[in-house]
């Protein structure tokens, strides 16, 4: 595609800043020398991903990303980091010695995925972007055609939840229990 054609499409004007913010904050998440800064860059990356989903008129996915990931998961990250230690400034311990290997793996993965998608789709245009999918259609699909996968996922999540609680719980010996009861 010619660069002129590309620029004359208004959707690209929105896409380009979003993509740049996404790439920049994605890189900063791993290179930042402060845990909390890294978590905040993750917020930026997730927010621009939500923006990309909005561009694809997938409102529900975009809002779920904001509500679940930014509003709950990252908040829990930050909460967990801050309640244990809240380091300000740089932490050199965050520089892992094998970071060059990690960078190599990341670049290789990026190349593999980019090559794969370009090979598979080429310059084919994404179909079916227009009006956002209404909640009604989504709900019908989830509880109609996809009800079995939906239930399986819910069941797995419940199992994971119970497993997490069991692993985190510390079973007390009778003597310890007595001591705990005495307090």
């Amino acid at each position, binding site marked *: 595609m010619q660069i002129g054609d590309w620029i004359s499409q208004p959707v690209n004007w929105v896409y380009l800043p979003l993509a740049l913010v996404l790439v920049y904050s994605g890189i900063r998440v791993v290179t930042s020398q*402060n845990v*909390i*800064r890294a978590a*905040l860059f993750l*917020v930026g990356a997730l927010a621009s991903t939500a923006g990309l989903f909005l561009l694809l008129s997938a*409102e*529900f996915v975009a*809002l*779920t990303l*904001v*509500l679940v990931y*930014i*509003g*709950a998961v*990252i*908040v*829990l990250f*930050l*909460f967990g980091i*801050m*309640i244990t230690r*809240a380091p*300000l*400034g740089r932490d050199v311990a965050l520089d892992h010695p094998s970071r060059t290997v990690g960078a190599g793996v990341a670049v290789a993965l990026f190349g593999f995925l980019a090559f794969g998608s370009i090979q598979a789709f080429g310059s084919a245009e994404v179909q079916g972007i227009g009006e*956002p999918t*209404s*909640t*009604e259609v989504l709900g019908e699909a989830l509880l109609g055609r996809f009800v079995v996968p939906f239930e399986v996922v819910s069941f797995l999540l419940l199992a994971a939840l119970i497993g997490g609680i069991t692993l985190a719980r510390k079973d007390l010996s009778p003597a310890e229990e007595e001591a705990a009861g005495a307090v």
Partner: protein
Amino acid sequence: MMEFLSNFWVQLVIKLLVAALLVPLVGMVIGFAEMKLSAKMQSRVGPYFAGGRWGWAQLIADGVKFFQKEDLVPAEADRPVYKFAPVLVLVSAVAILVPIPLGPSVVGRDLDLGVFYVLAVSSLSTIGVLMAGWSSANKYSLMGGLRAAGQLIAYELPLILAVVGAVIMAGTMSLSGIVNAQATWFSEHGWGLGMPFVLVQFVGFAVFMIASLAELARIPFDMPIAESELVMGYITEYSGFRFLFFFLAEFANMFSLSAIAATLFLGGYWAPGLSERMLNILGPGILFAKIGILVFLMIWFRWTFPRFREDQLQTIAWKWLVPISLANILATGVIKVIV
């Protein structure tokens, strides 16, 4: 004229202007109401001199004062994060206003996922509060930020679950659609009567109001800024207009959460016996009156209840509000299927 008004960009500019002006205006009105009502409830006079009668100019004087003050940043603070935190809190407060309908066709943007959008955007302010608490490099700020985050996580769940009842009743997540469902509830009988959902969803309404008080960190849920323990919590180090941002965001959030409660449970802009044309003109006034009642309730609570302890706060959220709202969803679902 009408052609000019129906242009997309003209409409966008008008909507942005309304939202940008509404927030400071609402902040001033609610702030002033709070000053005067608190004074009344404590047998004081309250603001008296500024502007002559009733001291109506007190809030304008306060606003000017904040802009004159120096914008201080603590030496140890994480500067970019510290400076951005109040902006994020205020932006999330303004962005909630988008899907709230002021009349049948007076709405920022009627989103199909209106309720979901409101909950998603309001959860952004938690990040801003945590950013403010951490980046201030102050132990009181950090403790305030942590308390606020713990509280907001705990009360977001009942807040979300409480609105599900109203969504099931209306069968849509669009805020305009929910108002419409309340306005035309009995219309199949040709009575022209509606039914505000508070009559059948009182449990949901009560849980929503309690949870929104907690989300606002107002008394009796104001541990994050408990002045007798934490100076001013996560706002401690802020001064000047960044302090004002937090202040405005609190009042704007009071307004928008009351607006959502009014829209979901009290019928929003709708009032019985008015045609659609009249509702477009009088709707904003009707909605603001309902919001005013809810805001008055919040101010009244502030001077009626003592502050909860941290463990009491968590107990109320997890052991009472969440089970109650789950039971409410179950009951609403069963009744909806049967009726």
